[in-house]
């Protein structure tokens, strides 16, 4: 028995080393003086300076952030509606279709999503003149379409766990359905809404493939810029960028878990 658990522990430790070693090496070499990413040439922060002076990176980061914020917000609205409809509305015409459409984007390969949306936008432009050209708007629409599916999954499981008699009680006490939703449902599922927002935000910020298809001139997102740099070969400033992103994420996760633990203590 102790032998089995020891093996398990070792596998687990190796698993975490596997997960974190590449990330650690990114962080370490972001402080490397040398341009060679893998040879240590002394401590330096020059890649961070280079990064902050790179207008292309800063510009695309700004675009990505704007896209991600709008995407996350719209995805939470639409994804929550879809989840609510699927968990609370019982039977209606088109229910099976809605279920399929709201889960299929989860496993749809990015290349297909990207290609199909681009072709849609091109056809729509021919037919009705909108969207005129492609750029941030088309990226946002594409991102919302697959992000809302993730939000729907997260919110749906929370809604399913929620005691439905809470909503019935509010209605029984005289609240109309819209009031019930905002007074009772939203506060109770708030953690799932926050989680869904963060998930959609991350997915949008992270997406390369879909954005590459549906973007237009002048709207390069951060992943697109990173990808073109990485494809060309070694670029230590990307290490610096990665380190900054990791730091922000780690801080965010730390704050979130601290908040959650506090909330759990105080209820």
């Amino acid at each position: 028995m102790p032998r089995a658990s020891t093996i398990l522990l070792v596998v687990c430790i190796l698993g975490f080393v596997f997960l974190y070693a590449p990330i650690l090496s990114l962080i370490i070499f972001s402080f490397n003086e040398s341009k060679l990413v893998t040879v240590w040439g002394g401590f330096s922060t020059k890649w961070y300076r280079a990064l902050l002076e790179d207008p292309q990176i800063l510009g695309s980061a700004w675009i990505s952030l704007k896209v991600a914020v709008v995407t996350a917000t719209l995805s939470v609205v639409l994804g929550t509606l879809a989840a609510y409809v699927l968990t609370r509305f019982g039977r209606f015409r088109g229910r099976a279709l809605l279920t399929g459409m709201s889960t299929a984007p989860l496993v749809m390969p990015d290349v297909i999503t990207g290609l199909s949306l681009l072709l849609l936008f091109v056809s729509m432009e021919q037919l009705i003149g909108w969207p005129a050209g492609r750029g941030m708007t088309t990226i946002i629409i594409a991102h919302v379409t697959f992000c809302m599916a993730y939000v729907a999954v997260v919110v749906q499981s929370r809604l399913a766990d929620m005691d439905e008699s809470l909503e019935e009680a509010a209605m029984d006490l005289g609240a109309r359905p819209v009031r019930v939703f905002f007074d009772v449902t939203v506060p109770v599922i708030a953690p799932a809404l926050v989680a869904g927002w963060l998930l959609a935000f991350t997915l949008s910020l992270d997406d390369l493939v879909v954005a590459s298809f549906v973007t237009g001139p002048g709207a390069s997102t951060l992943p697109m810029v990173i990808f073109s740099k990485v494809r060309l070969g070694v670029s230590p400033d990307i290490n610096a960028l990665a380190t900054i992103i990791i730091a922000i994420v780690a801080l965010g996760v730390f704050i979130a878990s601290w908040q959650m633990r506090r909330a759990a203590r105080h209820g």
Partner: protein
Amino acid sequence: MSGLIERLPPLRWTAALLRRLGLRGRSVVIAVPFLWLLVFFLVPFLVVAKISLSEAAIARPPFTPLLEWDGLRAIVTLNFGNFAFLFDDPLYLNAYVSSLRIAFVSAVITLFVGYPIAYYIARSPEGRRSILLTLVILPFWTSFLLRVYAWQGFLRSNGVINNFLLWAGIIDQPLVMLQTNFAVYLGIVYTYLPFMILPLYANLVKLDESLLEASADLGGRPAATFFHVTLPLSMPGVIAGFMLVFVPAIGEFVIPELLGGPNTLMIGRVLWNEFFSNRDWPVASAVAIAMLVILVVPIMILRNAQAKTEES
């Protein structure tokens, strides 16, 4: 919010359409996500299907229309040549087969790596569980592209691994790891590991400890308990995790592009090149349609597994 509705024509149209149809209350709540997904998820596939049946042309957009109006009647020109082309050129068939193989092997490896970790976390004391789980999810929140990029630095001939092995004297010349299928497997296992661990963990943590105790009490050794009790009960988690790795990996583009070599054939990459390099939109569409057909079966399996998990 209202400003946003004005700014984004699809939302504006939706609102106008709903008003026109006289829909209120419940119907509106259903219609909003329904119409969005219909227009931006389902209709695009019809457009792809349509374009896959047209011919490439030097035009903007670069394909011929299916439907032409010669003044008297509509002429429909359907061109199945793109699909015939997929079967004629072994490149496409090979790419499909190789994508399925790479995705399958990677998913199996991910399962073997992920199961013990998920099991360990699920059997940990409650406080440690959430910390370990956070550690598993944390890399997922950082950029996917950058994590793949990190492996480039690890695997290249003057990368971290080779430098270490040379320094330790285990090898005397660098191993070629980058731009091989090995690197692609590694990349997929690495980036998709959380998708395997999470459903497995969600399943294993619900496993009633008294079942394991009952098995032990009835004389089952740990191995027997595992194979007769734990594993069968965790099958829905295994299937869900496996499919969550297998299905998206089939269409993977970034990993073969950055870690694989020129010989690493994967269908997502073929589609990308067909579209961006050859600018052959009809063939790219045909590739996408063929890919969808292949994906239908595993997606069905996944949905069944999820439905079963929800029931229990």
